[in-house]
């Protein structure tokens, strides 16, 4: 699964720590998601999408290897 969290953060001018605070996780977790080391739960994905005012699939996309 890939994501464009880094880009969305840049648009909203949010740091990893600020986003982490808004969704109630650690900065390390946001960092792991951005570097594709950790796949967030549905709940966390929905919370992140809500921060950016977008749908989950605009931020997280399935890759061929996931199918």
């Amino acid at each position, binding site marked *: 699964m890939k994501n464009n969290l*880094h880009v969305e*953060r*840049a648009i909203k*001018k949010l*740091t*990893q*720590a600020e986003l982490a605070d808004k969704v*109630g*996780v*650690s*900065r*390390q*977790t946001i*960092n*792991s998601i*951005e*570097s594709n*080391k*950790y796949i*967030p*739960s549905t*709940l*966390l994905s929905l919370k992140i999408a809500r921060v950016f005012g977008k749908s989950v699939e605009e931020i997280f996309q399935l890759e061929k290897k996931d199918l």
Partner: protein
Amino acid sequence: MKAKYLFPYSSRYLGIGLILVHIPIKLLWDHFYPNGYDQHISSSGSTGFLFSAPHLFFIGTTLMVLVGLFLVAFSRERVEDEQIIQLRLDSLRWAIYLNYAILLFSLIFTYGNDSNHILMLNIWLPLLFFILRFQWVIYRLNRSARSNDSDTRL
């Protein structure tokens, strides 16, 4: 996702304290009663008895180490989020696999008193494996986050 059945973050310090306090007590006991504890274990009732001084000492020190390790292993992290919960579970599985692999191997190649000692080590060895592995993955996670620190500034 909420982590259940974990102790508060600060209880890890109580755990470390218990483990540290146990060390001088054990050393003093071993100094004053060399072989006392082993004799008690191997006597199988001939000289030792339930709640005798060596038995009470054994219960006391074993409880200190066990409770200490338990508190260190199962206290919350500062931010106990879903990634930490997953790492905790992964580390627990890893520790149990490693422990039982070593246990099976050692039981095959030992007998008698050595086997008893190995089984006694297994009172706290899985917890120790878990703590080491869990702290190692958390250290790696923090290091990886620090190395990407420039990104956090955008």
